[in-house]
């Protein structure tokens, strides 16, 4: 597929997306669009399909029905299409998934060299630029195990953003962190938002979502139950299921 020549559409466009695990329907007719510079927060109870949705977008999960387009590129099972999608989509995981045998710097430079084809010096310069953006250039020579959870997650964000994605997916980026480290990661994400990065985030941090999101969707049983601007969703949820869920998570806050 001549991926780079395709007419650029919105960073993400999903139509009628459905996915089954055997008889269990994980996603049920998802329609979703994220415009450039927009920030989507996906919330909902566990098992509602939030993570599945986000992982389907960059082909970590397959799907049976519907259409996903990233930046105008249609996702299919062809290796070229998958590669073209992954070149446009960055991903940050709950468990960081840094490569433990590589230093922080090598974690960032290896994909730049092997996937982006940068020279060693260019990769190093670009990696250091993004490590400075997440405020940990001084940790570049350390191994991930020597860093705190919050620092590891910021490295993971730097590694993903350094690749220059059109869309950044974050799957519960603060759920595995000790409470005192949540803020540094959320602040990093707010910094990316200020830079205009298009993002889709699965999170339970509702206070953060209100400040961060341009659009919030509430999912339950594989469907999008409610889509709203963050202020509206929190102040005035239309659906009873949304209200029940918000009562649960806000009480926890």
């Amino acid at each position: 597929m001549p991926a780079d020549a395709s007419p650029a559409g919105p960073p993400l466009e999903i139509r009628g997306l459905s996915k089954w695990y055997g008889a269990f329907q994980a996603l049920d007719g998802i329609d979703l669009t994220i415009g450039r510079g927009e920030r989507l927060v996906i919330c909902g109870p566990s098992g509602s399909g939030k993570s599945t949705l986000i992982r389907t977008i960059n082909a970590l999960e397959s799907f049976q029905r519907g259409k996903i387009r990233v930046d105008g590129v249609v996702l299919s099972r062809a290796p070229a299409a998958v590669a073209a999608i992954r070149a446009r989509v960055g991903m940050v995981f709950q468990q960081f998934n840094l490569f433990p045998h590589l230093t922080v710097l090598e974690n960032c430079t290896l994909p730049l060299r092997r996937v982006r084809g940068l020279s060693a010096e260019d990769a190093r310069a670009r990696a250091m630029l993004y490590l400075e953006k997440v405020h940990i250039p001084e940790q570049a020579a350390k191994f991930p195990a020597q860093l705190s959870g919050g620092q590891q997650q910021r490295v993971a964000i730097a590694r993903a953003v350094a690749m220059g994605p059109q869309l950044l997916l974050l799957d519960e980026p603060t759920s595995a962190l000790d409470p005192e480290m949540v803020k540094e990661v959320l602040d990093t994400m707010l910094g990316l938002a200020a830079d205009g990065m298009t993002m889709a985030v699965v999170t339970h941090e509702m206070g953060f979502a209100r400040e961060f999101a341009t659009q919030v969707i509430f999912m339950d049983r594989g469907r999008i139950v409610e889509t709203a601007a963050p202020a509206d969703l929190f102040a005035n949820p239309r659906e009873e299921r949304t209200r029940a869920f918000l009562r649960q998570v806000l009480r926890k806050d």
Partner: protein
Amino acid sequence: MHFADNVDYPPWFRRPVVFLPALAILYLALWQGDAAHWAVTETILGVLKASATPVVVTAGLTALIGANVWLILGLPVRWQVFAVWVELALLLALFFVSFDLSWDFIRRKIWLLVSIGLINTLYISAASIAFASILALAGAMAKLSGNGVAIGVANFYTSFFRGIPLLMQIYIIYLGLPQLGVVIDAIPAGIVALSLCYGAYMTEIFRAGIESVPVGQWEAARALGFRPGTILARIILPQAMRVIIPPTGNQFIAMLKDSSLVSVIGVWELMYLARTEGQTEFRHIEMMLTASMIYWVMSGMLELAQARIEQHFGQAHAR
């Protein structure tokens, strides 16, 4: 290795209530075993024995062993290990010396064992290790591939070559393949047999090693857009090595000695030469012991190499 449970175990064996009865039991055991008349006793306590009764010799032996144990228990751990190694090696040497070996014969033949036997053994083992590693990686990838044909081939391969004796595999390849018109020399046949056999064992080691890497590592690598070959070579295998290397080191050491099986098809490796040279002057034990010591030295070197490699791949986990 220390078990850091912060407990200071008392040196209980050096307490008189334990140590003195232990000496008494040792004395009785030596007396019962007639240790005063052992050849090894004569070697150690030669001066004493000439003019002493068995009671005195046994007492002297008991005192010597007791003092030795007492002293070693008082040393720091590192020196304890060293002292025990030296003493066990000396005892082993005494044991061998008691065979009344012809050192002259060993001196005359050892160069032949080293120059031809050792070189051939090393060459066969090194080649087999290299091919077995390639087979093991291919086998592990096949088993994890999700492709039924690949899984079937890999399963049949590991089942067959782990399931029949290595000696039989050597015969099948050297004597059986010519039936199909494939005539193969003895050394290549040995290398093929050893590679296939150890590749089958190592397939399981490699599979377990690859599976020990968390699935999140594959996902992160895929999400970053790495190609499958790069994921395996740069992300997964370096991490799997921590699990793969210790049992693989075992396999290499075992293979070094199993390479002696190819002597049955007339390869002039270490064990073949030891046997045939020993026959020339009916000095079998000399040649077998010499070959054994050469094997031991080689496997010791492999152990050192393994420790170095483990250290290398463990560095990310050393905090």
